[in-house]
């Protein structure tokens, strides 16, 4: 298992953002669904080693990120796209991706090649020299994905990756997710259930800091049979699980 989580919790002041999560995930695309404030981003940030858990245990890629050495090793094999992508407007697309390749300790000799591949995979090859300040929101999102995959991560964490993408780009992105999931564990946090249905092999649904459902997209769809709220079968499953959890 690339992700092994037991009783993971994170508190921000009086708010318990993540309240005891147990989760295992191997290679493949793992969807993390849930309403706003469910704790998805906090869970993803802990998995990305950006913040430390308040309690519980977390093992990533077979290592304990609590210690510096293993954490550094995990970070070499990690890709992360945060919900709000920060960027340096003066950097070009290629420079930004190269910057993160270097920070992820990709060997210097391999940097030009992996940067080119990452940019091509998000279809920004023609914009490699374009300054980030001139890109649209959707293009910036793709730059964010490029920097996340530049080191060919074994664990890829994507927080709302399809936000801002047009339908065509979203379809292409799902294909990219499926491709990445063949070699790595990809955790996708979203509240767009159609992304999950199209790309994920496993899905977990979070609410109020806890996982209230864990199974396949088909399992989630099945939970919605006979439930009235929602336009699509997966949406009905999503609504049914949430309603049950809150009742």
């Amino acid at each position, binding site marked *: 298992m690339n992700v092994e989580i037991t009783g993971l919790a994170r508190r921000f002041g009086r708010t318990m953002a993540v309240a005891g999560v147990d989760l295992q995930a191997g290679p493949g695309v793992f969807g993390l669904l849930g309403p706003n404030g469910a704790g998805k981003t906090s869970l993803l940030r802990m998995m*990305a080693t950006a913040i430390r858990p308040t309690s519980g245990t977390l093992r990533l890629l077979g290592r304990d990120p609590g210690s510096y050495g293993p954490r550094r090793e995990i970070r070499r094999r990690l890709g*992360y796209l945060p919900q709000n992508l*920060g960027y340096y407007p003066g950097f070009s697309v290629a420079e930004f991706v190269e910057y993160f390749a270097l*920070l992820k300790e*990709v060997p210097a000799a391999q940097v030009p090649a992996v940067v080119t*591949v990452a940019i091509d995979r998000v279809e920004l090859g023609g914009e490699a020299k374009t300054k980030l300040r001139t890109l649209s929101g959707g293009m910036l999102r793709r730059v964010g994905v490029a920097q996340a995959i530049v080191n060919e991560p074994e664990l890829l964490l994507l927080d709302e990756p399809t936000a801002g993408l047009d339908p065509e780009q979203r379809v292409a992105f799902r*294909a990219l997710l499926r491709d990445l999931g063949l070699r790595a564990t990809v955790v996708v946090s979203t509240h767009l259930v159609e992304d999950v249905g199209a790309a994920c092999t496993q899905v977990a649904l979070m609410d109020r800091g806890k996982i209230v459902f864990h199974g396949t997209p088909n399992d989630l769809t099945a939970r919605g049979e006979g439930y009235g709220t929602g336009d699509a079968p997966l949406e009905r499953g999503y609504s049914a699980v949430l309603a049950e959890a809150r009742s």
Partner: protein
Amino acid sequence: MTAVQAPAAARPTPVKRGPLRATARLLRLELRRNAMLWMLPVAIGLFWFTAYRKAVAIPPLWNLRAASMQIGALLAFVCPVVGAAAWMGSRESRRHTTDLVTITARPRWVRQLATWAATTCWATVGYLGCVAALYGVTAQQAAWGGPLWWPAAVAAASLPALSALGFAAGTLIPSRFTPPVATVAAFFVLALSTQLIVGSQSYWQISPVVTGPWDMTPDAGVGTFYPYLPDLPIAQVMFLTGLTIAVLGAVALPGGSGGGWLRRPAAAVTMAGLVAAGTAVALAGTGTMDAHGMIAIPALHDAANDRPLRYTPVCSHTAIPVCLNPAYASYLPTAATALAPVLSEVAGLPGAPVRISQAAATYRQGIGNSVGIGLPGPPISGTPPVFRLLLPSQLPGPTMTTSELAAAVRSSAGFALVASVIGDNAGATRAQQAVTAALSMSAGLPQSSPAAPTRQRPNATVPLPAPVQSAARRFAALPASARHSWLMQHLAALRAGRIALAQLP
């Protein structure tokens, strides 16, 4: 996106080799996108406006230009460098990339050092360009000597320190307000750092805008006749280097900068930097003004620097040659022309000097920030006698025009020369006073002397009694040859005080 069409890159193979290459690539990226690059025109413009124009307006003496450059460059670069460094230091927080960069494998300290290094590199490049321009112009104008590198080194060492301070401020208080606040604070701290200096042995002499005894304006006489003392610059460079190391080390101390393996050495580095900076401050506190107008620090002082510099003087072809240090060669025509009438009057007289030779001033720390400057001993000394000349332009003070310099030379050195030959000193007879006044009148010297250095003729402004003035006018009215003949015969007696006022022709 056509992910399935695009080939996946082979997973990068972790290798232990090549960290320098990766660091070089990181530095190259930072250099290309560094805020200091955009601030360079501002820094260079400020340097040109506040330092370069002022420096080239003063005489082309290396010591003057170097001191002026050190202070001017620092004040011109402090704001752009601190501001750009603080801006770069706060970049991750301002641009909301903290999470993105935090989860990367490379320690935070390494990427911060790359950003700081890029900022410092651009600042240094700009500064070196400014130094090259000013020193290049000075090299074409200066008559003698070579560039003084210690003042340039002090200003150069200040840039990494200023950059580190700004960067640390931006990192620790990551706000868009940090750069302007840090900029203003740094400027005032630097500009006001000298205000607490009182006399010698002040710890505040460590401030990089101190080029010598703070109570003196840039002094053309310093570092011309004796080697430029590197004592204070050594302490300043040591302080600035220590400060840079301490601040950069401290940046690595907060959690998240790296593991214990990084924080422990960073703590040691910080401590080493603080020790170096503290030692330098302590050394600066022992610095006192030496007899040649520079700050000597006993622990750093090299006795070899107390020996005067060798030079071949440049001399005029006047009745008595006027010889100046070659650095002052451009002053020779003015000084020689100003003194020529006096020299004609006294040339050939018994006891008259065979040469007028420019001498180094001696400096003495007075009470508080006062400094006494002058020539030790009588103006004429040696065998054969030589008159030691102190040019007004080698003393602290505003730059003089040619006519001002000529007037000052006539009124100070002219009087002193005549008085020395005639023996007109504090206990002079009325006859000696009359002859001195007569020769001064004949040489066209002003009849009262307000000019410095007053030590050469302390009684120059005392009005003469009417009988003395009358005798002086009578003696001055004689033909020059008659005056000269009389003096040839009677000067020894006159100097000995054996000639009364009535005996003057």
